[in-house]
């Protein structure tokens, strides 16, 4: 089965691109493809627990990410160095997110058939 890797670089609100990237990831999984998501840079803010998109009149990104396992997307990765740079810890992130060191990301990207950057 071809594997798709979505690289999510943008913070959750202020731009609709992060949401449209997640919509594409869900659609890809709905077509029975293997999907991984890697959150890096300010994209790691999408994974923060306790966010409330409705206060910005937006649908909640965290709710969408939390629903990923229902679509058989279990591979949710946060860039460990991006977390460190921002003073964030894994415990502050949504359940089911795994840490990935930069070297492990390089392997994941190399092994993925399609890599899409958002």
């Amino acid at each position, binding site marked *: 089965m*071809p594997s*798709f890797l979505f690289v999510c670089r943008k913070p959750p609100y202020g*731009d*609709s*691109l992060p949401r*449209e990237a997640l*919509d*594409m990831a869900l*659609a*890809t999984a709905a*077509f029975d*493809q293997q999907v991984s998501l890697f959150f890096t840079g300010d994209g790691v803010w999408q994974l923060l627990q306790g966010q409330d998109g409705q206060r910005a009149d937006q649908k909640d990104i965290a709710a969408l990410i939390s629903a990923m396992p229902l679509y058989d997307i279990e591979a949710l990765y946060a860039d460990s160095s991006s977390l460190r740079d921002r003073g964030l810890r894994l415990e502050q992130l949504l359940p089911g997110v795994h840490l990935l060191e930069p070297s492990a990301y390089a392997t994941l990207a190399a092994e993925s*058939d*399609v890599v*899409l*950057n*958002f």
Partner: protein
Amino acid sequence: MKFSILVLGAPYSRQSVQTAYRFADAALQRGHSIYRVFFYHDAVNTGNALSQPPQDAASLPALWTELGQKHQLDLVVCISSALKRGVIDPTEAARYEKPAANLAPGFELSGLGQWVDACLNSDRVLTFGA
């Protein structure tokens, strides 16, 4: 090589629509093929036939229409991204009772499945970002 191209940036705001066009044109000239171009996010405005740049600037919708017709390209505008941004074809305009349609010639509205299909049927996919 068989390419598919994902375009995300807004025409006239980001360089990426222009860069994607130049890549597609160069690849075709070198004998490569393009399976599909998928306009997503703000790039859906590339399919807006009502866009009118000043006289000293190129019309990006017209450039893509011309390239598409010359090479029989499949130029797909994501329907969910497009409708909320006011890019609409006659069928959808009738369905949602809108006063007009504006999708440029050579483009078609379709869903994300078209992009997944493009990824599965191309040697390489390239993203031109937002």
